[in-house]
């Protein structure tokens, strides 16, 4: 097993009270780290459920005119899959990572509102349970977009649609409370010296994620409330037969739905911006440009929603406006990709698993970004919208984008959370299976869309090469699933048998590595004064100077400038 050099600095946390080990302590806890772990475990379980639904969809589509599942069940499967991955996996997984690492990275001892933080988690769990309870009755079947009139009481009389509405409410409330908490924590609880220009880029991303949630989530909350009253209390907001508008729903949904895409990928951009410099042994290239482009993407993200509606009856003026803003948003996104490649340039790149996932992310997200430009060219969108081309696009952005960064984060931060390293060989196997499986599943779907296959059809005739392309996609999806399974095995195995990590196994740049792994309840006895965007580099250099290059493990070393702050 790989051994890691004795890390410096070593922290002794004399003032921390030992954490309760009873199971009830997980229910009563307000510790951001425990809440973060609960978020991550819960959302990963939903990820596996959503993944199982995806595999069932791929099984059904593996053969033409397949009768494995009924049209009703097929519609339920893709509705559950989309809803689960968006509301119960990617968004709250990012909240989980931020919960654990945001206070640590800014040198805080907890979140600003610890009890509100616990409430956020329990609301999320409640939303997930309400939604999944519907599988025992009538799961929703109008798609994760729930377009009216299909989702109204006439065409979707089942309670599953209501379960979907309550899921959006509960997880939305959870996200809004969490976002306010993240914002308040960053605004008020940063270590001394951590100015906005020294904030880790992951924190910049979470800050932007929080603002997006605070602005976008109330819109969908209002929209689903209107749908709920339409369904049960006789209002007609979306009913064309009684003065309502079916297009209004599309506008409200996508005014939330497009920022939601950035809510899902911006934290991933932050993760990549943290990991690349560590494994290239080089500072991030263009810190200010990356932080600024994050904010620019968030702003422009609010102006592009109607590009999901290019085929709807909307005026040309609206089409032109959102097409231009969609072209524009490609600029800051491209800038980020250039900055990441420039960060690797002239570095010394260590091919550890987190770096592999980040490199995989850049190569896949580039494809998703480029296919996004095709979709902004709205006459082309008229051809490929609502086809497998769009299915491929969203998966390159959300799976190649957000999910690969989540796996990078798991491999990068697992040592901090558990105190043990994950196996590198299993990690690399997992990455390559996921990477190859992902390309096998989704690359060919672009061609399927160009050949005229609409999305969300439960069966298709054997025309052209549809059968062959679908079979390739189905085989790919099982390779992808195998890759995910390897990481699960890796995590379970390493919890007991992984090499001891020590506080700073990667020789990283940010403050979460300035404490033991896992960190004690109070995170830090001593909070250092931050002098740059890479405080751990300064601390390591200072310790090296003081100990003339000889690390002294097991000794409480208070670095220069560290101030004693009340516990």
């Amino acid at each position, binding site marked *: 097993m790989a051994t890691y050099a004795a890390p410096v600095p070593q922290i002794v946390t004399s003032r921390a009270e030992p954490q309760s080990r009873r199971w009830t302590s997980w229910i009563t806890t307000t510790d951001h780290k425990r809440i973060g772990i609960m978020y991550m475990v819960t959302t990963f379980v939903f990820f596996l459920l959503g993944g199982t639904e995806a595999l069932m969809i791929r099984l059904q589509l593996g053969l033409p005119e397949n009768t494995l599942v009924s*049209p*009703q069940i097929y*519609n339920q499967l893709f509705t559950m899959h989309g809803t689960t991955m968006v509301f119960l996996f990617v968004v709250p997984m990012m909240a989980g990572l931020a919960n654990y690492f945001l206070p640590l990275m800014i040198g805080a001892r907890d979140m600003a509102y610890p009890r509100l933080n616990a409430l956020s988690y329990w609301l999320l769990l409640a939303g997930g349970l309400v939604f999944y309870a519907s599988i025992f009755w009538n799961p929703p079947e*109008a*798609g994760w977009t729930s*377009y009216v*009139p*299909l989702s109204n009481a006439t*065409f979707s009389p089942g309670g599953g649609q209501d379960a979907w509405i309550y899921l959006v409410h509960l997880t939305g409330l959870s996200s809004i409370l969490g976002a306010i908490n993240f914002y308040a924590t960053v605004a008020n609880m940063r270590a001394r010296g951590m100015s906005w220009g020294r904030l880790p880029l992951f924190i910049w991303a979470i800050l932007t994620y929080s603002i997006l949630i605070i602005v976008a989530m109330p819109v969908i909350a209002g929209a689903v409330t209107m749908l709920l009253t339409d369904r049960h209390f006789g209002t007609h907001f979306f009913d*064309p*037969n009684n003065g309502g*508008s*079916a297009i209004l729903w599309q506008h409200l949904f996508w005014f939330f739905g497009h920022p939601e895409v950035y809510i899902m990928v911006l934290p991933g951009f932050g993760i990549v911006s943290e990991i690349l410099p560590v494994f*290239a*042994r*080089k*500072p991030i*290239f*263009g*810190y200010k*440009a990356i932080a600024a482009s994050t904010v620019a993407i968030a702003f422009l993200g609010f102006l592009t929603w109607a590009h999901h509606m290019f*085929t*709807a*009856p909307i005026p040309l003026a609206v089409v032109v406006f959102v*097409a231009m803003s969609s*072209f524009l948003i*490609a*600029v800051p996104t491209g800038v980020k990709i*250039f900055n990441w*490649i420039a960060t*690797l*340039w*002239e*570095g*010394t*790149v260590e*091919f550890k698993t987190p770096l592999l996932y980040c490199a995989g992310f850049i*190569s896949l997200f*580039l494809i998703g970004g*480029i296919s996004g*430009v*095709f979709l902004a*060219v709205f*006459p*082309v*969108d*008229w*051809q490929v*919208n*609502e*086809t497998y081309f769009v299915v491929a696009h969203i998966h390159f952005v959300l799976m190649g984008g957000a999910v690969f960064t989540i796996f990078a984060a798991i491999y990068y931060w697992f040592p901090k959370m558990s105190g043990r390293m994950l196996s590198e060989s299993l990690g690399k196997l997992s990455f390559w299976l996921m990477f190859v499986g992902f390309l096998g599943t989704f690359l060919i779907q672009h*061609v399927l869309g*160009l*050949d*005229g296959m*609409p999305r*969300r*059809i*439960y069966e298709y005739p054997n*025309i052209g090469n549809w059968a062959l392309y679908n079979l390739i996609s189905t085989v790919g999806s099982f390779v992808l699933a195998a890759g995910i399974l390897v990481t699960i095995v890796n995590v379970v195995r390493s919890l007991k048998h992984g090499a001891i990590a020590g506080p700073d196994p990667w020789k990283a740049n940010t403050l979460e590595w300035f404490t033991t792994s896992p960190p004690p309840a109070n995170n830090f006895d001593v909070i250092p004064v931050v002098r740059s965007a890479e405080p751990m580099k300064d601390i390591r250099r200072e310790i090296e100077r003081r100990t003339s290059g000889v690390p002294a493990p097991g000794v409480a070393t208070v670095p220069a400038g560290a101030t004693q702050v009340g516990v």
Partner: protein
Amino acid sequence: MNRIPPALGHLIPTTLAFFTPQSGGSPNANSIDSLYKVVLYVALVIFVLVEAALAYALWRFRARKGAVAAQIRGNTRLEIGWTLGAAVILLALAILTFVKLGSIQDPVNSGPEGANLTSDSGAPLYASADRKLPPNGKSLEIKVVGRQFVWEYVYPGANEPDGLGAPYSYEQMVVPTDTTVTLDIVSADVVHSWWIPQLGGKFQAVPGYHNYTWFKIEKPGVYRGQCALICGRGHARMIASVKAVPPAQFEAWLANQKQLIAEANAAAQASRAKLKGQIGAGQVENP
């Protein structure tokens, strides 16, 4: 060998078709296809350059003994350069989109071989202020009605001013060749999406709204498509097709369709009258 073998000559368009949307049925679909190809070529160049730069950076700068990472924090000129570069490429694509838009969105005139688009009184068959017509104002207007889970097409030729008696068909639309057909797309229930890939882009059928598109078919034949927006459990079975036939054949088909509908209506009226008589005579219980 100084000429391309026939097999390879055939392969080239097929390989390109692998990467491009369907076209060949109507001028607007062909214009979308040519616009798409320009975007594709630009995208391929950018894709290859960026992926190559990434792969090169990973391989060339991999950690080796004695290698030291350069501590560079940025380069303002380079960063402004690539920001402007990306903006210029996207601006060019945006301009190209608007240059091409007219040929995609605006209907063309029917050809000389097309159907005679005048009614008995000599007036154009259809004219409407809120949608695009060909320059000469003449087109064959067909109303497309989406409903769970079948497409209905209503052709011109109503007997009465309120539209009654117009010929209609389900699932397969029949149109004359070389004739500009404008579609008025509506829905009777939920949102659907009209799409025949070889005849151009798709357009949603939304209850309470009208959506418009057009096509003009040169070659007789059947063009296949299906509903493109989830509309319920029968979505995958909501097939659509357009059959293009020479104008004379179209006129005959339309007349026949009108007669069949009239006969069916008459038969229905007769059986209704008969049923009414039976109810009156007490042979059938009034429901």
